[in-house]
Every structure is written in C-alpha cells, then in structure tokens.
C-alpha cells in the first residue's frame, strides 16, 4: 500500500479539520500535532524563483507539508532552504535534478514553478511517478506538450491543477467583479449570441509589452552557481546571456512568449468558462503585428480568435487599444463594460434571479483526497493553453491560421503544424511519452 491509499481512510477526519478556519492552524504555529502525519499530504516545489514564493506554493501547514525543493541555481536553492527554515519552520530536502524530486517517495504533490519550457516534461514525469500536480500557468509552451500532459494525467489517474484562478476567485482585472456574475449574464442569453470579448488596455487588461526579448545577445560566461545545461533542458542550445534566464526568460520564444504567452492564460481561461466553451477551440486566429524575431519576442497590434459559431476573442496590444468606450463583452442585444457597467437595465437583479453556475471544486488538497477534478484541471487547462499557443504560432509566422478543433492541428499550413510539436534537445524528447 502506498502513502496515499493509506491517506483516504482518514479523509473524512481531514475534511472535518478543513472546516476550521485557516487562521486557527496559523495560530497553532503550523503545528502538525492535530493531524496524524499519515493523513497529511506533502508537496515539493521545482523552481525556487519568484513565483514559488507566492502563497500558492510557499506554505506548509497541517493539510500539506512542504518537504522538498529543487533548483538549477545553487543560490536559489540555498536561499530556498534558508527561507523555508526561517519562515515556515520546515527542513526541506534540496535537489539539483528535478527528476529526483519527482520520484521522491516522500512527495505527494509536485508544484511546478519553472519557466514554461519545462512545464510539459515535468508534469508528464510527475504523473508517471504517481504524483499529483500543481502547475503554474501557462500550462505548456506548445500545443503538443499540452496534449501529452493531458494524456499522461489521465493515463496515470492523477489530479492536476493549473494555477490561474480567475474562473473561480478574485476580481477579474479591469472588470471590477469576479467572473461569476458575467458567467450568469452570458448564460442568461440577455446579451444575445454570438459574443465578442475584447481583452485590451481599454477593458482593463495589460499585455505587459515590457516582457520583450533582446536581439543580438552577446555570449557571457555562465555563472558558477547555475547549471545552464539543465536550465535549458529541452530548449535549443544558445549561448548563455543573463537576459535569457531568471525572470527575463519571458522575452524568448524558446522558453515562453512575452505577455501573450505569460499573461494570456490568466486572461483567456476565464473567457472560455464565461462563454461555456471549456471543451471548444476557436477555428481561426488572425494577427496584426510587426514581423517577429526568431529568438526575441516582440510586440503586436492585435490578435483575433474566431469560434465556429461566430464568437470572437480580440486581444489588443498596448498602444493599439480601441478608442472611446469599449465593451468587454459585446453581443447583439447588449454589452458589458469595464467595472461591470452593462447596457441591460437593473443587471444585478437579472443576474440574481438566475441559478448560480455549477459549483466548482477549488480546494486542491480535498481533490487529492477525493480524486475529484479540480476546478481548473488538465483538460480545461489544455484548452485555454492551446488558444494562447495558437496565437503564439500565428504571431511567430505572421499570418492567419485555421485550426481544426477535432484533430487540434492547423489546416493546410505545414509550418504552423511544425510549431505544434517542437523538437527537444538531447535526450529530453523521450520524457514526453
């Protein structure tokens, strides 16, 4: 019997504990006396850069203890061990090779906090090692890797959480509300159909164009603390320059894709939910942008997605926003603006009369115990990540692409299809399957 089959027996007990407010545990000083160690889950974090210190990952409590971390930068790793000792009172096991963490029998849940070029491989390997997975957005940097993650999670019976949360929590950027009333309004049919969603500075969404890359990078010596070969992993070898790595990696296609790839899933995943299209893909993506450099991510003017039923998602780049008062969602019968301003009279009354959307399971630890799907699982995550990645493909090629939702390939464009499954360096390709 493995650790987790042992756990479920006390799941009811654990669930009873979770009814207590979180602060109660906090006041116990993270003391785990109140839950037997066998009922407590454990997690490990791969990648000890900026995001791993967010409250989503950097915690250790009676429901889930932090037991190990991994980084390819010795400074990040040592600081991580030190900070966790100081702030969480835990002594964690440090790893340099993430595969060892993924196979550590003491770890139940693997948190993936690396740059996106690793997300696919790490998720797959963790699934194959029998771990449940909490992966940072964006889910993967190619459509093919996303599909492979979805398959691996399914085949190994794992619970997967993609980490962006606006479909179930928090004010959704410029809208000044959570997503729930929007979901109800759209479902009511009061706005008509098809709908156009505009994700733009004009509706309260920033595309962070400062996350662009630099051309003409001069090779620099690799710092002693960094295992650059392991940092690159499946990405093509390119000489080291500090701008490629830590936090500025977002500006390079090999690892991410600027604001579009890095913020895109935050902004687009809730739209899929709002439109009720969690199991659909757009059939066309059009771009208006200057030519993109093959290595460094640049800026763009607009990216437009069209679904088969005529619904559209329009992304407007910084400096290219529509002028005047622009709706966030526009339908033939009504529109919603920034701040939840709506052309439907007494919109809140209308919304209140409708049933709530189906409840979403948002307690990941509980999901691990019950094996229920998390609100944003690998299937929904794959769908919204694919929309982002369709945009990346169209942007890199600079042309309109048509997408076949059934096969999840581009229609009649070989180059675009080459971007769906990109070659991996060295032996890393074999970890994909």
């Amino acid at each position, binding site marked *: 019997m493995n650790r987790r089959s042992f756990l479920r027996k006390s799941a009811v007990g654990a669930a009873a504990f979770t009814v207590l407010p979180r602060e109660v545990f906090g006041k116990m000083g993270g003391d785990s006396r109140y839950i037997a160690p066998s009922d407590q889950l454990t997690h490990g974090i791969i990648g000890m850069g900026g995001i791993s210190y967010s409250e989503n990952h950097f915690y250790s409590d009676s429901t889930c203890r932090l037991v190990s971390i991994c980084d390819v930068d010795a400074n990040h790793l040592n600081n991580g061990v030190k900070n966790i000792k100081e702030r969480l009172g835990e002594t964690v096991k440090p790893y340099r090779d993430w595969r060892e963490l993924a196979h550590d029998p003491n770890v139940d849940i693997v948190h993936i906090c690396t740059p996106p070029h690793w997300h696919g491989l790490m998720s797959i390997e963790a699934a194959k090692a029998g771990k449940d997975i909490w992966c940072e957005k964006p889910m993967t940097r190619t459509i093919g890797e996303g599909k492979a993650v979805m398959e691996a999670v399914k085949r190994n*019976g794992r619970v997967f959480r993609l980490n962006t949360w606006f479909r179930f929590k928090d004010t959704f950027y410029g809208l000044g509300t959570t997503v729930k009333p929007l979901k109800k309004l759209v479902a009511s049919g009061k706005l008509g159909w098809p709908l156009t969603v505009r994700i733009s500075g004009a509706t309260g969404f920033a595309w962070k164009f*400062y996350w662009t890359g630099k051309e003409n990078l*001069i090779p620099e010596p690799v710092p002693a603390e960094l295992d650059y070969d392991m940092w690159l992993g499946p990405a093509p070898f390119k*000489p080291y320059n500090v701008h490629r790595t830590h936090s*500025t990696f977002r500006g390079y296609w090999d690892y991410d894709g600027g604001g579009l790839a890095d913020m895109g899933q935050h902004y687009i995943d809730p739209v899929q939910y709002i439109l009720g299209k969690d199991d659909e893909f757009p059939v066309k993506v059009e771009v*208006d942008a200057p030519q993109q450099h093959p290595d460094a991510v640049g800026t763009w003017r607009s990216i437009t997605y069209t679904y088969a039923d005529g619904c559209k998602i329009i992304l407007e780049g910084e400096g290219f926003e529509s002028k005047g008062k622009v709706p966030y969602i526009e339908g033939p019968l009504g529109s919603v603006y920034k701040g939840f301003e709506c052309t439907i009279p007494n919109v809140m009354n209308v919304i209140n009369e409708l*049933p709530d959307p189906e409840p979403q399971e948002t307690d990941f630890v509980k999901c691990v115990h019950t*094996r229920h799907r998390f609100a944003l699982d690998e299937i929904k995550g794959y769908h919204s990540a694919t929309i982002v990645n369709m945009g990346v493909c169209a942007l890199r090629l600079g042309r309109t692409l048509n997408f076949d939702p059934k096969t999840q390939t581009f229609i009649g464009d070989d*180059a675009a299809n080459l971007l769906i499954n990109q070659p991996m360096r060295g032996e890393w390709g074999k970890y994909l399957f």
Partner: protein
Amino acid sequence: MKKILTIISAILVTSVSLFAQDARQRTVNTIVADVLAQLPAQNYGDFTADMEDLAKSAPQSIEMVAGMFQAPEKGANNKLEYAIAGVVSFANAPGNESYREPVSEGLKNAVSKAVDETARAFFQSQLAMLGSPCCAQKDGCCQLSEKDLLAEAEKLLASGESHKKCQAIWILHKVRGAGNVSKVLAALKDSDDAYRMTALMTTEDYADASFYSRLTKAYKSLGTDARDDVLYWLGEKKVGGQVAFVLGQIGGRNSAEAIAAAGKIGGDAAADALIARLGTEDDCAAAAALNSFNGDITGNVLKAIEKAGDNAPASLIALASARHITDAAPVIFKMAEHSKDARAALKGVVSSDNLSAVAALLDKADEADVATLQDALYACVSEEDAEDRFPMLRDESFKAANKSRFYLPIAYTASDEAVAYLTGAAVEGSGDALAALCRIKNGNAASALLSFARSNGECLSRYIQLISESRMSEFRKTDAFIKALSIAKDEKVTGAILGKLAGTANREAMEAVAPYLESADKDLAVKAANAVKTIGCKVPTEIPYDDLVKYFDKAMKILSATGDPDDGYAVDAMKSTLSASKPYPVSELTDEEKAAGFVMLYDGTNLDKWIGDKNTYSSMNGAINVFANYGGDGNLYTEKEYHNFVYRFEFCFLRPAVNNGVGVRTPMGVDAAYEGMCEVQILDHDDPVYADLREYQTHGSVYGVIPAKRLKHKPVGEWSEEEIRVVDNHITVTVNGEVLVDGDISEACQGHNVAPDGGDRNPYTVDHRNHPGMFNAKGHISFCGHGRGLQFRNVRILPLD
C-alpha cells in the same frame, strides 16, 4: 590547364548568380540590401513583398545573407535573423511551395559554411522548419499485440502502485472497450481512491443506461468511499435515468454526495427532495445544491414556503430571496415581524408595493437590523425607473422619525439629486449622510467629498476613486489628484495617488510625483519611481530633457535596489527612453533661404522674437511645446507685424486629436479667424472625434472661408513641413510638398467679408459668419492654441514687402 578552367568556370558561375537580375533589373546584391534595410517588416504586406524578393532570388540570396553573419561579439545579426526566419516562414506558407527547394538549398549551404556554432544551430533550426510535420504523438499501446497488452496490464496491476494500476485499467479499457465493465465494477471494490476514480473515467465512451443500472446495482456491495465515487460520477455525468436511485441515498451515510449529485442532475423530483432536506442535518449541502440547481425551482420553492408557513427553515427563505421569488413576498413579510431570517430575506422578494411597509420596519427597527432593512428598502425601488427612485425614498424618509437611516438607500440610487440631498445633510453635520456620500456611485459627489477630505480619510479615498473612474479629461484628473495629494496624510493614500497620477501621464503629473523620489519611506519612493518611469516613458517630450535625466537617474537607482524583476524592466525602459529623447538640434536656414532673405523666428533655443502667452507655449528640448489647455485662449504671436510673406515651419503631433492654427495678419488677444485676416487650421482631422467635421475645418483650411484639400497626416510623433504664402488677398498653403489651398480670400466670399445687410448671418462665407478682419493690411502671425500635444520647430519667415 584543366584545373585553371575549373576555377574560372567556378568564378563565372558565382558571378553570374551574383549579378542575376530581377524584373526591376536589380542584382541579388541589391535585392538583399533593399530587403535588409526594411526589416523587421512592420506589417504583413511589407513582409510578403520583402520575403518574396528574397525567396525569388534563393538560393543565392540566402547564402549571401547567411554569409554576413558574424560572431555575436563582433556585430549585430538581428536583421539577418529576421531575413532568414522570415523567408523560411514565407516559403512554408500555403501556396508558396515552389520556393521551399531553393530556400532549403541555400540554408544547407549556409549550414556548411556557418561562421560559428550559434549561426550553424540557427540555420539548422530554420532548415528543420522547412520539413514536414512529424507525427510526434506516438501511442505506446498501439505497437503491442492484444496479448502483450493484457500481460502488461496484469504486471502493472500486480505492482500494487496506485498510478500503475490506473495505467492498467486504461490499457484494459483500450483492449476490451465496453467489455471491461466487470473489471471496472471490480475496481470499485479496491481501497485505492485514484484507481477507483480512474476506472469510472474509462467508462465515458460507452456508458449508457444499462451501464449505469449495473453500476447502481453494484452500489450496495461497495464501501462508503466507493459509494461516494459512484454518486459523484452520476452527478458529473448528469445521469437523469438514475435520479431516483440518487435520491434514495439522501439521508443515508452518503447523503452529502447524493445531494450534490441530485443538484447537478436536476428535475422536479430532485428539487423537491433537496428542498425537503433544508433545515435537516443536510441543510448546508442541500442549500448549496439548490443555489446552483440544474433547472427552474421557483414553483417548488413557493409551494414549500406556503406549506411550511412560519415553520419554514431559514435556508428555504434565504433561497427564495437569493432567487428573487417575488411571489413569496407576502408570506415572508408576515414572518418578518418576528423572524430575523425573514427580515434578511426581504431584499430578494420585495417590490414597490412593499415600500411603505419596509420603510416603517426600518424606522422602528433595532440597530442590528438596520443594515438588512436598508438593503430591503432600496430593493423596493430598484426595479423602478432610475429617476423615480430618489423621490420615492425621500418621500418615505419625510414620514420617518429616524431620517438618517434612509441616507444609505438614498445613496444607492446614485442620482444627482441624492448627491445634493446627502451633501446638504452632511454639511449640517450628519455623520450618517457623510458615510452615505462615501458610498454613492456618482462622480458628482467628488467635489463635496473633497471639502470633507481634509479631516476624513475615507472621504479622500473615495474622492480619489471617483475621480479615477470618471470620464473627465486626463488633465482635469491630474488637477484633481494633485489636489488630493496636497491633503493626503498617510503614506498609503499618498502612494495610491502617485499610482493614479502615473495613469494621467503629462507634465503636471510628473512635477507632482517627482518630489516623492526623495521620500524617506521606501515604499513611497518605489511608487514615485514607478510613476516617474510611467510618465517619463509615455510623454518624454513634455518634460525638459535635463529634468528627465535627473528624475530617471534617481528612479533607476531606487528601482535597481528593489530586486523585483519587473523593476528591472522599468530600468530598461527608462534607459531606452532617455537614449531616444535627446533634444532636437538647433535649426538653421538653408543656403537657399539665406540667399532669399529668410529670417529665423525660432531655431529651437528661445522665444525672443515672440510675444504673448509664453507659459502655455514654451521652448523646450529644441521645440515650441504647446501646453495650452483645451478651449484656452493662450496664443503666441510674432513680435513683428507682417503684410505679405512666406512663413515656414515644422509641426509634430504628440497626442491624437490636436487642434491649433496659424493666425494671419491678426491683432493680439482676439480670434484670428474673424478679427484677423484669417486662421489657417492645424488639426489632426483623421481622429475619430472629428468624424463630423465640416470641410472648411480640415487641416490647412482658411478657417470658414476656403476649404483645403484633405491631407493624410503622418503618424503621431513624426514631423511635417508646412509653408503659408500670403500675397495681398492670395493665400497658398503647402504641407509636405502638397498644395492644400491656393486661392483668393476676397474671391472666395465675393468681396463680402461681412453680411451686406449688417446682420450676423453672412451668406457669402462658407461658415456663414462675418470675418471683419479679413482685409487687415498687416498684423502678427500667431499660433492659436486649443489644447496640448503639439510641437513646432524651425519657424522662419520671408517678408515680401
């Protein structure tokens, strides 16, 4: 001899290819140079034109570009990379198949001749992009025989490891399909949670009514956890056929899961069953399921409330309220006298019929119920027309003893009358009115809030919020935030205002935020640095260059010290802004202008030859910058007066929708378009705000007298050259070499600059107005400001008298 011949022919071949010419008689050399000069292409049209040129001359063009790569330390390769990646992408586009072979050949040669490993890897990666897509998604299962697969599954099952058992059940499902049901049912008896749930998931493709009936038959033999799994699954799949089975589990050990499943499946029977569980030990689960129940439950809820009467559980009343079941209002109202839960539910069920009754309840309510009843009171009018809500509530308040309890519902109306009413009450000293004023969603409350803001932090915060949400012009917002800044007391509010000022990027905002760079409070200094960066990068031309350097230096120091990665980007942005915003060089007359007798009026250094409003027109960074506010009357005039002349200048729009003009032969302090000879319009007429423009108002028009040919303006930030030639009554306006106006103003109005009948309407001018100054003999030349966002430079004149 033979050897020499080979070499010679090799040279010949090379030279032939190098000098091959395209349809425009260009050599490959020229084509490559032309293309490289234009990269990166700014739009798809340019891109395809450039890349077609390269592709047509492949492989030579490719080899030539590839041959120009240098080691990264020695020089920039970015344009070459744009060219190679671009042509590969072009060749790979649908319809361009014929270019793939030559481009590919060029790249192969490039690989063998690459200057270093980085370049070689780049060429190879591009070559790979010319291949055809491989089928990367292999399915390991497919390559094994059925027998092998079953053996593999047995092995995985025997391992006892959870995820391996999950793999096994998928394999078994793949091999047996619907025939795997008995294995799935057996798996449900396993103690492993993941395995059980995975087993259920494998059934998705074939599950039908008969499968679900087998599943529910097996239910009895399962453990508690597995029973939960089955119920969860029936709910997930909304198995309507098993709703009776699911309802049968309510009240038992698996009640919570059965209730959740019933809510997802829906239907009348489920609704009634769930409503019956309200007020029992399943209250919470049933309420949650009913809030998101799959279908309409209005009738069921109403029936249940009527039946239960005073015994209705709190959660049932709350449900009626949440779903706005107004038919339940009479029952709930009756209960409201003695039930707190019913009072809380009123807001969801009341209408204007209940207004007076709710008002009476509010008036005499205990303090603890006030907030609830205030919500209910506003709900009574919320479906009425917006303009009726305030008077309805005000009239009720007149009848009440506790008038102040009505302030908050009145604030919810968000009407202008409410703002005035609450401001009046607040001035008279009502704290409740002031609190209500802080809640009102109406920008007109801002000025009242500001008057209280000095002594009340909540008023100040609300003032800031209302200003930032308002549709005021950017400059009015800046003024408002600066006012707020002057009275803000704590760092948090000050920091928030700095952030708001950054959102209204202009000179005044910069002057307001810059002093906070020196703040001793570290967070505040960082906020100031970010604001300075945002404003400076957005409107560098509005800030004197020396100040910009000073502010940015300080801001970069502050942000470099934070260690936050996004602050690193901010530093990069400031560096690149600084390098792009050096002041313009001093302008000089051309030799031809010198010979003709032109005089420089503004060369970029000072306004000594000008009079008038030198505050809103200032010489900065080598240009005259217009800071006039919209509708302002600040004008800049030449010191001297002129009769006939040639007037030349350059102008540049920095913001969209700019409006200005050149006054001709005008006295000072009057409207040059009428009191001067004329005003030659300067206008960003392409901006959408000018959609309804009349033709005599476009750029270059002699305003109201002679319409100009419509000019296509250069983009914001680019300079245009303009010349205005005035000889007696003849005026010629030329922009960027294009003549927009060439006509006689007297002829244009048949000599009638004013109406012959002495009236205000002049039928002879295109704007039908009088132009009394049209035949002025001489006057100043002016810039007539109507708003900021414009620069002039290199202003010179040739007097023709």
